[in-house]
């Protein structure tokens, strides 16, 4: 693209040779007001979001930051400064590391199958099927259900002794699984709830992206003799990359903050007898609302914030390189492309200085 770029031709009308003779104007209050209007209105129009963010977003974040350095009594709203003690406490707790492990395990178990299913279902919905809208709305139904309701139903299904899943396993002669005692089993059970709820949501986003792929590509591929599978891997999937990245990032943020499903997985909601399904958000809740230690909870909140920042940066890095890859249909390596870009830049620079000398 850059090679074909020309310096924009200077519009003749707006660039006269000399300063124009100003027509005398009466500068009234009205026109001053309209000048301000022009300058300020856009800021005013976008300000509600930022004011709301300052009040409901930034202030709590900073307030949490202050509390995290204190031994805080939430009920009386007072505390004493203790420095980094709360951070040290949280990081020294085995429960924190259990929570970190569980969070990532549940995240992987829920994101990977979820996206695989979503891509598959979206590809199916992208075909010529009857009652398209019905099917498309159908996949969104689980998303509309309240997470707590989903969690309640699923935790009944995953009961250790009278759950429907273990009963079915027993029917086919398999031993029951300790959904509430085995760490990995509990992660699978929770990931199932997450997948149930979010697969349809991601499917619709991916479907929208698939519909944006020009149909000519498929026609050309069909003419060239490519089958459906080949078309999917050579046309659909590459075109989906930017959307996939978006979906991956949103799933990551959601996955790291997972709370409802593990909270509702048993009656106490404290993450299992041996922290089997204690996630970071759940541990945060336990510290804050179980032990009433808001200093520690605030410190953990900041640690979670930093973890999300790191993962977010990682995502950004990966997604950038992926997006750049998407444009490489010219068969050049990165070094070659850079060299070409440099050459173009030099040529443009030379041209513009030459032009400057001319005028």
């Amino acid at each position, binding site marked *: 693209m850059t090679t074909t770029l020309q310096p924009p031709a200077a519009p003749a009308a707006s660039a006269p040779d000399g300063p124009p003779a100003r027509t005398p104007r009466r500068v009234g209050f009205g026109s001053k007001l309209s000048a301000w209007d022009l300058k300020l209105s856009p800021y005013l129009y976008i300000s509600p979001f930022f004011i709301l963010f300052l009040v409901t977003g930034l202030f709590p974040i900073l307030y949490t930051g202050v509390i995290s350095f204190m031994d805080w009594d939430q009920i009386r709203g007072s505390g004493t400064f203790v420095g980094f003690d709360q951070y040290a406490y949280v990081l020294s707790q085995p429960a924190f590391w259990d929570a970190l492990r569980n969070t990532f395990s549940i995240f992987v178990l829920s994101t990977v199958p979820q996206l695989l299913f979503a891509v598959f279902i979206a590809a199916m919905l992208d075909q010529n099927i009857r009652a398209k809208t019905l099917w498309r709305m159908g996949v969104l139904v689980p998303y509309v259900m309240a997470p707590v309701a989903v969690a309640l139903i699923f935790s009944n299904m995953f009961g250790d002794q*009278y759950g429907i899943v273990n009963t079915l396993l027993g029917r086919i002669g398999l031993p029951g699984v300790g959904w509430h005692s085995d760490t990995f089993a509990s992660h699978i059970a929770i990931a199932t709830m997450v997948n149930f709820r979010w697969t349809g949501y991601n499917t619709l986003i991916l479907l929208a992206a698939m519909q944006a792929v020009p149909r000519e590509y498929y026609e050309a591929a069909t003419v060239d003799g490519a089958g459906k599978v080949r078309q999917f891997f050579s046309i659909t999937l590459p075109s989906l990359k930017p959307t996939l990245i978006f979906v991956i990032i949103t799933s990551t943020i959601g996955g790291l903050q997972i709370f409802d499903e593990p909270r509702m997985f048993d009656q106490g*909601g404290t993450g*299992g007898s*041996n922290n089997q399904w204690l996630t970071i958000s759940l541990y945060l809740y336990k510290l804050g609302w179980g032990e009433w230690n808001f200093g520690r909870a605030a410190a953990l909140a900041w640690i979670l914030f930093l973890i999300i920042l790191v993962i977010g940066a990682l995502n950004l890095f990966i997604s950038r390189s992926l997006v750049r890859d998407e444009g490489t249909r010219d068969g050049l390596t990165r070094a070659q492309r850079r060299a070409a870009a440099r050459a173009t830049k030099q040529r443009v620079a030379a041209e513009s200085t030459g032009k400057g000398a001319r005028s």
Partner: protein
Amino acid sequence: MKSRALRRVALAAAVASTSALVLAGCSGGGGAAAGSSDEEVTLTVATFNDFGYTDELLNAYTAEHPNVKIVHNRAAKSNDARANYFQKLGKSGLADIEAIEVDWLPEVMKYSDLLAPVPDDLKSRWLDWKVKAATDPSGNLVGYGTDIGPEAICYRSDLFEAAGLPSEPADVAAALQGDWSKYFEMGDKYVAATGKPFFDSASSVYQGMINQVEAAYENPDSGEITATTNPEVKKIYTETLDASKTQSAHFEQWSTDWYAGMANGAFATLSCPGWMLTQIEGNAPEVSGWKIADVFPNGGGNWGGSYLTVPANGPHVAEAQALADWLTSPEQQVKFFQQAGTFPSQVDALKSTDLLDAKNAYFNDAPIGEIFTNRANAVTVTPFKGQYYFQVNDAMSKALLRVDQNTQDAQTSWDQWVSQVEAIG
């Protein structure tokens, strides 16, 4: 031009609506003054589980006080109520009357100054130890005692019969007279005869035993945590888990499986404070074999019980106190007992013939009034529960569950509990 005119109109409208909001806010804030007894007031009462506060019974108060409207909010579990309580205590948003449970009473007592004290003339209404637990260092009683949880043994008579054990309440009571070893002996016989578990979980047996220890987890004088070094705790832990190996159904208390087990005959006995009766009846409505034996191993035990508190910053403190007074009066408490099995903590209620004559149809017409009065009289030890009791005990029930579920052996689980308790504070 057109758009500018529109913009001006919009601006004027915005200013007008903002000032309207401000004015509305001001007038709303002005109406909070405490009203006289004739003023229309709405009182909210927040409870959990089942306090027996049915609309019919609450209507009796509204009939006497036509200006009062009562809104009853009921949380499913005490943990939900606890989170809500501490989140809002000292701020706003609590109900006019809030129920609290004895297990988190120690945490509440740290903030006793935020609660309206119970009038002095009512103090003689309750059992001594019920009053003592809710009195702060400056002598203010801050909780209106509702119920206590004297424990009996509920058992499945049909399963007992099938196992060749005595099945009539009097015979079971006689057989269980003595300490916990009698209970575990009976359990061994039951397991040997049927191959099925005798009790629900290690935690519930542990609960019964630890509530018979005077100072299990903390030193009453210094408040120091002594749980990990107290030999009695270790002894109860070991005894429970030894028996649990063969006799426990390995449920987690309050789990859906546990509730299902009540109906499925998954276990034959259950520690039964008065409030447990509605739990059993509600979850096993079709089982006819549940009966109550007037006995509890090692004497008496108290499990749970609640108080009503009146947050001092509520809008209608005086009216709320009047209602709390009524709700915890001996006459009303007897009615709530008949309704939900919540055993009264009032001296007069315990002498009431209505209470003594109370029977429960579900439990084969068990004379529950008489049984639980006997059980209450058998309680000799009032366990001390300090401000860390809830956390230590919660960690302990998880430690027991780990062994019960075969995740860890007893020693590993104990060590893990010790390190958890050491991190508390």
